């Protein structure tokens, strides 16, 4: 067995017991990258030299007997919208093709202080806008399960790299499903944490009130380990929440009495029959193990997508206004005056999807339309939150499909934005309500593509999500294996 095939927690244990070195593990990962990256195209930048130096440093520390974090020496990949000091951070956009941040995101500082070995920066939809990773300016990442399919988005590179064994763990960001949906498509585990539990400082903002950084791994325990390493109050992020952040575990062996809510709106027409079948079967397994399943209703779900697109686009239009060719990144070659420079820079630097959302956001905030669109969407956000609050009075967790379908073909939805947006139908409500949710694999469809089950909890109940997800994982054969990529 190759080292890269281990789970992160298995590697962590081997490193601690000196059964292998961080340098060996890191080399193994880079050998794997060498082997399959040409097919998967998950990375935008590979930082091999720095990674090997860091791995060597960690091995030396361990040799000296220093107390190290569980993630010390574990190779981790980072989505390219998370700022890394001295390392190109492009958001997969032409606009930031040359941007090298002079600062680290808080999560990067935290991971560095715990001796992370960073393997590189991972591909994504431009500025995290998209559900297929096809909106990257630089490359199209493929789904390791089927190279003609998309890995999902926007954190497609983060999901594909973990699934293909090109890294042990990765960080993504989730604004409307951008961690959970690619985790589902790529057959791995992904967590969208409670809003405010992971610092957003240094995450290039898409929609500030919805964005959260979260971990990917090939098993629940890996995800719990990485989440433990990144969560916590940060004084650089005014929206980060002060509360107790324990070290999370994933070894639950008993779910008797667990109350599971199944919202009927998430099992309706828009959801693929095979997906419904797989998720329902998974819920039955949990029921057999002693959980209590209840049918519930979250009536505003059908309208959540509209509210999501208004709020996220409005915030995006404002957050992306700073890209103007003055301070960093792309500037158009020739121009006639300031406004022409602004317009050409922004039109050439942004892709179509980003432009579409900037214009939608500008429109809903503009004079005369604010109340009819933005304000109404904010009211809807409140309604959706209230519905979840009510639902959690009667159940401990809510289970839904993560995505309405499995990975689709590259190019299949690019021409129809509304169809593409519908991919987020099961995930956006969680962001709107600021809740935590985890996606765990629950079988495959007839095409052999993975199906994901979404487990949603009340705010700050990540431990409960890890408990249920790890219980289910143990029930169904344990951690996911590295996907065989035909080369």
């Amino acid at each position: 067995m190759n080292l890269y095939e281990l789970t992160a927690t298995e590697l962590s244990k081997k490193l601690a017991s000196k059964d292998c070195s961080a340098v060996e593990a890191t080399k193994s990962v880079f050998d794997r990258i060498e082997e399959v990256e040409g097919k998967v195209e998950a990375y935008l930048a590979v930082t091999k030299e720095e990674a090997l130096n860091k791995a060597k440093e960690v091995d030396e520390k361990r040799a000296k007997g220093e107390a190290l974090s569980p993630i010390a020496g574990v190779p981790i990949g980072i989505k390219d919208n998370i700022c890394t000091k001295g390392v190109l951070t492009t958001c997969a956009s032409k606009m930031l093709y040359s941007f090298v941040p002079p600062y680290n995101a808080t999560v990067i500082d935290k991971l560095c202080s715990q001796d992370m070995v960073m393997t590189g920066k991972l591909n994504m939809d431009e500025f995290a806008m998209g559900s297929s990773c096809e909106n990257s300016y630089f490359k199209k990442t493929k789904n390791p399960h089927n190279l003609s399919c998309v890995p999902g988005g926007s954190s497609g590179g983060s999901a594909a790299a973990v699934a293909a064994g090109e890294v042990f763990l990765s960080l993504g960001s989730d604004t409307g499903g951008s961690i959970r949906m690619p985790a589902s498509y790529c057959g791995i585990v992904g967590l969208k944490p409670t809003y405010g539990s992971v610092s957003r400082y240094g995450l290039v903002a898409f929609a500030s009130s919805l964005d959260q950084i979260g971990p990917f791994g090939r098993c629940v325990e890996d995800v719990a380990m990485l989440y433990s390493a990144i969560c916590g109050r940060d004084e650089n992020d005014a929206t980060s929440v002060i509360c107790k952040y324990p070290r999370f575990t994933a070894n639950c062996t008993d779910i008797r009495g667990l109350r599971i809510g199944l919202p009927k709106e998430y099992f309706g027409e828009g959801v693929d029959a095979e997906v419904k079948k797989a998720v329902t079967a998974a819920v039955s397994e949990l029921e057999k193990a002693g959980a209590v399943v209840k049918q519930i209703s979250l009536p505003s779900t059908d309208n959540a997508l509209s509210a999501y697109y208004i709020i996220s686009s409005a915030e995006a239009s404002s957050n992306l206004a700073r890209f103007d060719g003055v301070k960093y990144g792309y500037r158009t070659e020739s121009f006639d005056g300031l406004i022409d420079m602004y317009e050409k820079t922004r039109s050439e630097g942004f892709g179509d999807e980003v432009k579409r959302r900037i214009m939608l956001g500008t429109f809903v905030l503009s004079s005369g339309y604010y109340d009819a669109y933005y304000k109404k969407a904010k009211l809807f956000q409140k309604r959706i939150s209230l519905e979840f609050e009510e639902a959690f009075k009667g159940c401990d967790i809510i289970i839904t499909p993560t995505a309405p379908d499995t990975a689709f073909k590259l190019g299949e939805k690019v021409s129809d934005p509304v169809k593409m947006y519908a991919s987020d139908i099961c995930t956006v409500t969680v962001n709107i309500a600021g809740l935590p949710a985890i996606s765990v694999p629950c079988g495959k469809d007839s095409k052999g593509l993975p199906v994901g089950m979404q487990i949603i909890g009340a705010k700050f109940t990540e431990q409960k999500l890890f408990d249920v997800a790890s219980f289910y994982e143990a029930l169904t054969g344990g951690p996911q294996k590295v996907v065989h990529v035909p080369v």
Partner: protein
Amino acid sequence: MEYEVVVGLEVHAELNTKTKIYCSCKNAFGGEVNTNICPKCTGMPGTLPTLNKQVVKSAVKMGYALNCTINNVCKQDRKSYFYPDLPKAYQISQYDIPLCEHGYVDVLVNGAQKRIGVTRIHIEEDAGKLLHDDSFSGSLVDFNRCGVPLIEIVSEPDMRSSAEAKAYLDTIRSILQYLDISDCKMQEGSIRCDVNVSVMKKGAEHFGTRVEMKNVNGFSGTVRAIEYEAQRQIEALEKGEEIFQETRRWDDVKGKNFILRSKEDAMDYRYFPEPDLGTIVVDEKELKRLKDSIPELPNKKQMRYISEYGLPEFEAGLLVENIEKAHFFEDCVALNICEPKNILNWLLGDVTRILNERNCEISATRLTSKNLTHMIALIDKGIISNTAGKTVLEVIVDADVSPEKVIEEKGLAQISDTSALEAIAQEIIAANQKSIEDYKKGKTNVLGFLVGQCMRASKGQGNPTVLREILLSIIEKN
């Protein structure tokens, strides 16, 4: 046709906090370009704002000083527009819920008290600066000022002349100084103004169309800008032209304004709640502490000085302008050994002259209220002359010694002994026989000349009042 001018002001005052409003950069004027900046105040990708506690406190204090309702649960909003001095392309400000609103301030204009409504006070960040150099084909951007904390104080359209606007601005400025929340340095642009002007026929029920003027720096500039704009509108109306709702730019050098944009081109700022910041909550305890920290304010002080001590409006205004001087004045008055008016004259006269020469405040000298009032009381009693008082002042400014001791050491006591003074007077009259004739012919001003001669002969120690009486009695006997 007589017209009335209607003026409303938006004052932007930079706060003197240690750090900027949303990051820990030093809040300082000047410095080499782009040396006082960080990824946060320049809005680099991924960075987030964190609100400075002191900014909220200062703004609440100003709110109390201007009799506002404090919205102690409020939020911030983004105001979007593209301009090179605004690195995020939005300014973090406050839109529908300002920290303070519904206030007023009383100002004195030519002896009359006038109440000016204060619509709102909100907190926001300042923008950077554009530098222009003809030798270079582009414009240069310096972000040092980005994120300097501002409060915007918006008045009601309650002022009816440039004089009222001036009085309002002077009052706002001295209140900011009393609260010690702004440096108020005009030349450094720490207070700036947007001016709204309209005119209407005297007695009209409705205001005329309002024109906004930007780029008004300094208070004398404000007066000129208002007068120019009012005249422009009156002339237009007299010609039968219409006034358009527009924004104009004031050029202080040319003394003119120019159209910047018409109503149709009005900016669409797309305000919406700042999602990177949470709810501002100032708790009741803190509110009370801030409210209790407000001192008696200069406008109130001035009015009290006029009514309680009978000081003239203008001089009372000068006195309260400097909080330390006003406090010193009050200490002197409390000793109750001389007239407040005499204290005022000494403070605004010789004391101010000495302070100006030394470019310092009273606290930097050794002058005490006790010594100053004793010195004044000695003059009042005729023990020393006014001139001798000045000599005493020069000493007690630098040493805490009693005026009596100074008088004794320097031999400054006045001669009030009638026989000694009579001898001098006789001598002077003998030498100036012609002046007695002149006096009797009605040239009474020769008396002053004779008093002066006697003073000189007494080496300044003769009591001029006594001398005058003696001289008169001698003349009459002649």
